[in-house]
């Protein structure tokens, strides 16, 4: 580590979900040369795509660490910009340079190309060379049609007996394979068919990924350290045993796996639960429903009520809405609320974000949630729609679950779980102090928080206040 006063690392950018490495094609600037922020420093290539990598800062190229022609893992430090006057670009370059691409996208036929690097090995690792010298023969042809069907059904095409030329798997082969039930592993696939008016693979405009890592650009130190480490997924898996079926892991699934693991490795997860009497909200919702529907075409869901109440409560508990960034605690005067949305039947998870939730009333919240949820399912989210969340709500209660311990969406500090609302006998006390048993609509809420930042009592008070808001929701509270 050359530690001049300010030395900024330039790392191999993340060029896609399943792109784990890149090759240095050309250094546009050499050691000792001056460079301005955003000016092209080098060019890299991946596949047949050449990409210009801009300098993340103005200064002097103090070190070039990887020579032309070499292929290295994403996140590898390629060069350092430093010397006198080295300063990070004012608005940190929007480029991929230092920041792991937040968005992934269901890359349908998940190319099995995420070759697993030791997280630490990020430093220097001159891998062989990009374009492996492919011999012309023995290539497995898979037509896009077959690839799409395979991915829709979660089938590894190599498991399908091929009758085409050279054992190639034809469309008929894969149909027959599915019809034969050999692929029974995938229980739930009615949807994709209609969900795919644009014929191609499950790709689509932009389907950003799971609770994407997206570490914040600013923090100077951890930037490179946080370079995404390829999922420790496919270590040489043992072949499928009797009765087992293999299916390929989609890029999104890999992204989720990596993120979940990393979150658990990062935050000290603790979950607290509280029971909320939702009777009032149920009542008010019944009243509002018709009005909201007819006037605005929007359903005032319970989630909207909870999101609204949570946003209010977060203002009083900035750490729950905060973040640990290096050795600093980040708090905010705004709330960007993420909502965990499941994509068709276990196909993946996406966390679109409602920005500045603190400016929304109940109607605005309901509308915003409906909008992002729809766009998430239609794969119409823009990368920006999944970035910048400060707190997340997950709602597994739709299936009747009454408790859970969700995983925090990094780098946030908390996630609220909402569960089924059920009618239960409940002891209530009337104004005369008399206890009675009444039928109430009850719901559990959980707050899973990062105990590094949020303590149990603080979390408890947050939940208490949130409950209070929900239980005393006023007719005129929007």
């Amino acid at each position, binding site marked *: 580590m050359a530690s001049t006063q300010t030395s900024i690392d330039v790392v191999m950018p993340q*060029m*896609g*979900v*399943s*792109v784990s490495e890149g090759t240095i*094609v*050309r250094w546009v600037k050499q050691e000792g040369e001056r460079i301005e922020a955003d000016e*092209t420093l080098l*060019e890299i*290539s*991946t*596949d*047949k*795509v*050449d*990409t*210009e990598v*801009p300098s993340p800062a103005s200064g002097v190229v103090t070190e070039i660490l990887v020579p032309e022609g070499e292929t290295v893992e994403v996140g590898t430090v390629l060069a350092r910009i430093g010397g006198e006057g080295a300063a990070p670009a004012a608005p940190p370059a*929007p*480029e*991929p340079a230092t920041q792991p*691409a937040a*968005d*992934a*996208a269901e*890359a*349908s*036929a998940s*190319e099995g*190309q995420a070759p697993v690097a030791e997280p630490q090995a990020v430093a220097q690792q001159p891998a062989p060379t990009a*374009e*492996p010298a*492919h011999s*012309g023969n023995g*290539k*497995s*042809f*898979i*037509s*896009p*049609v077959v*690839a799409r069907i395979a991915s829709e059904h979660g089938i590894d095409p190599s498991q399908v007996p091929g009758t085409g*030329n*050279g054992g*190639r798997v034809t469309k008929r082969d894969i149909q027959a394979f599915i019809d034969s039930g050999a692929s029974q592993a995938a229980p739930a696939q009615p949807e994709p068919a209609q969900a795919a008016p*644009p*014929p*191609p*693979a499950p*790709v*689509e*405009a*932009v*389907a*950003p990924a799971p609770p994407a890592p997206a570490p914040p650009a600013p923090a100077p130190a951890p930037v490179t350290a946080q370079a995404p480490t390829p999922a420790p997924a496919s270590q040489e898996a043992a072949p499928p045993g009797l009765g087992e079926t293999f299916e390929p892991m989609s890029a999104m699934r890999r992204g989720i796996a990596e993120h979940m693991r990393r979150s658990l490795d990062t935050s000290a997860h603790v979950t607290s639960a509280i029971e909320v009497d939702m009777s009032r909200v149920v009542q008010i919702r019944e009243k509002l429903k018709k009005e909201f529907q007819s006037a605005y075409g929007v359903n005032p869901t319970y989630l909207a009520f909870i999101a609204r109440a949570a946003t209010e409560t977060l203002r009083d508990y900035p750490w729950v809405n905060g973040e640990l960034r290096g050795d600093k605690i980040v708090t905010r005067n705004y709330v960007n609320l993420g909502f965990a949305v499941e994509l068709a039947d276990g196909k993946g998870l996406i966390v679109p974000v409602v920005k500045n939730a603190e400016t929304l009333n109940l109607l605005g919240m309901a509308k915003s949630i409906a909008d992002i949820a729809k766009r998430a399912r239609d*794969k*119409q989210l*823009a*990368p920006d729609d999944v970035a910048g969340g400060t707190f997340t709500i997950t709602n597994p209660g739709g299936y009747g679950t009454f408790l859970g311990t969700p995983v925090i969406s990094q780098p946030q500090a908390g996630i609220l779980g909402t569960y089924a609302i059920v009618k239960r006998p409940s002891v209530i006390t009337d104004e005369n102090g008399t206890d009675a048993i009444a039928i109430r609509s009850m719901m559990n809420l959980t707050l899973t928080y990062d105990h590094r930042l949020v303590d149990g009592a603080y979390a408890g008070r947050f939940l208490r206040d949130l409950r209070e808001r929900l239980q005393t929701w006023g007719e005129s509270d929007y």
Partner: protein
Amino acid sequence: MALEAQLINLGTVDYREALDLQRTIAAGVADGSLPDTVLLLEHPPTITLGRRTEEGEVHVPDGAEVDVVEVDRGGKSTYHAPGQLVCYPILDLTRHGQDVKKYCRQLEEAIAQTLSAFSLEGATIEGLTGVWLQSPPRKIASIGIHLSKWVSTHGYALNVDLDPAPFTDWITACGLDGYAFTSMARELGRPVAVDEVRPVAAQTFAEVFGITFEERSPAGIARIPAFG
């Protein structure tokens, strides 16, 4: 809610001229002053050398009527000529998944769907980009892409109806020694006009990328700042 993009049919354009145009448009797409733009065109006979073109790949016979141009795209050498539909999508890939691999696959898919409208089954070969017909492998379309600030230039070239001999005789196209190149006309056993393929290519592209095209005449380009 598909994204809006503009489509421009340029006819036959000199390679360098088209390159300048791409760069101008790319600058506009990068700064948000232009929407995603797709150019469809043909080139006069031209050999282009990508960054990874190696010595010995080019062996043009003396007197051949062909331009040789070095370009800033990935990949190796290739050959363009009338009868080949060239598609240059200038897209802000941050709106399209921000993933180079995905982008390559989408281009391949668009080509394969175009071919399939003519009853040809395009396929991809693991480890090699471009789109192929099979048994034996014959390359029918090439792909080469350049990105700057996630804005793409260059794209694909689909052999509609041209003599594929120069791919192998004049150069070792794409660095692929011993591979055959073909065209739609050759496969279908009939002449195929680029005019016939172009609308299909536009449509499949729009479908694959989830965009709707507004077609602009080349004259519309004059309105692009710094051009003409």
